[in-house]
């Protein structure tokens, strides 16, 4: 009660400073603080037996609807969590606040986002697996001389949307936090790879355009790792594909040796919001890419769409 008064600056349960507490009958806790702007006065309304009367003030219908929907949502959530915990009781014996059930509740989903926000962004980057690793091995984590390198600032963003239509269909074995971690790292690396392609396109003017029909595996021998988009990827042979990092919308370019350094900004942030049946998590971080364009081999291709169609 004392904490409530200190934080909300009203006498609990009483009108003071033109504000009212709206209490939850079940929990006894405050679910909203209504001010004068949240009160709806209908004015004069007709009486059943004729004439008019002043209607009693009531909560603004929009606020009332939100509170009602919120209460309904919480009750539904409690029921679903208990059902899920009961279903898993045999092998796992879960409590309703078990992290395995986080995805099924609003507070749990916030906990997942909080855990993600407490991650080290550098670790998220470098923990990206798969072909992203082929790309990352060309960038240094440690301090190298960046005096002669081109510096590019950018923002890497990963937006994940997860459907939360029916909590009872939540798979308790799905590791939502682990999935977000991996997806965030991969999306960030893809953003950096795409950015590097743009920089190379602007900076490397000596690259000679090549017809996509003329591509052979030997074309790709000059670099260790290649980055390309989906259309070009389909034209590659299996030996080249296994060292090619596929990034949607990226220019086609190759990398050899260490091409530069990646610095991660300190402004890593996570934003989470829920709209109807969608849960959105957006993880953003700024970065600076120091790159030696001499080690980036741009391959400007023409006729990719036609070649992809014929392939």
């Amino acid at each position, binding site marked *: *009660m004392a904490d409530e*008064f200190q934080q909300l600056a009203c006498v609990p349960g009483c009108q003071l400073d033109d504000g009212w507490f709206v209490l939850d009958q079940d929990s*006894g*806790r405050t679910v*909203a603080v209504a001010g004068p702007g949240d009160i709806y006065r209908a004015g004069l309304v007709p009486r059943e037996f004729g004439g008019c009367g002043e209607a009693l003030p009531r909560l603004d219908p929009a606020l009332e609807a939100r509170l009602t929907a919120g209460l309904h949502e919480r009750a539904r959530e409690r029921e679903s969590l208990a059902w899920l915990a009961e279903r898993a009781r045999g092998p796992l014996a879960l409590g309703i606040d078990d992290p395995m059930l986080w995805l099924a509740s*609003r507070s749990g989903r916030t906990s997942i*986002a909080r855990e993600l926000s*407490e991650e080290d962004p550098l670790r998220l980057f470098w923990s990206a697996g798969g072909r992203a690793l082929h790309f990352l091995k060309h960038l240094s984590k440690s301090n190298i001389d960046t005096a002669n390198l081109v510096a590019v600032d950018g923002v890497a963003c990963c937006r994940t949307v997860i459907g939360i239509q029916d909590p009872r269909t939540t798979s308790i074995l799905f590791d939502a936090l682990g999935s977000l971690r991996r997806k965030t790292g991969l999306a960030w690396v893809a953003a950096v790879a795409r950015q590097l392609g743009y920089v190379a396109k602007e900076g490397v003017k000596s690259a000679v355009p090549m017809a996509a029909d003329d591509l052979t595996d030997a074309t790709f021998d000059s670099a260790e790792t290649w980055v390309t988009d989906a259309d070009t990827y389909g034209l590659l042979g299996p030996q080249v594909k296994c060292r090619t990092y596929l990034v949607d919308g990226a220019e086609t370019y190759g990398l050899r040796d260490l091409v530069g350094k990646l610095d991660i900004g300190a402004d890593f*942030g996570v934003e989470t919001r*829920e709209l109807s049946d969608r849960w959105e998590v957006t993880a953003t971080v700024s970065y600076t890419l120091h790159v030696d364009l001499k080690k980036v081999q741009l391959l400007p291709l023409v006729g990719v769409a036609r070649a992809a169609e014929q392939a």
Partner: protein
Amino acid sequence: MSLVVSGPGTGPLVRSKADPSPNALRTLRALLQRRPDLRELFTQFRTGNRPVEWLRDMLTARVAVELEDLRFEEVLEVCQ
């Protein structure tokens, strides 16, 4: 590192270490409605710029007798 939570009905309004039972909370609110001397404590708390522990202790001392069904720790928690 930052976390932004947005959307309808996000998070509790009041953050507290205490987790009182709904019944105790409802009983204390009913007491506050009935007793002006308790409400006066809140005014003193604000005008005197006192620490939140002061309000908790003063409330506890005054309502503990009336909340005889609760253990003292529970009364302390609901007043917190």
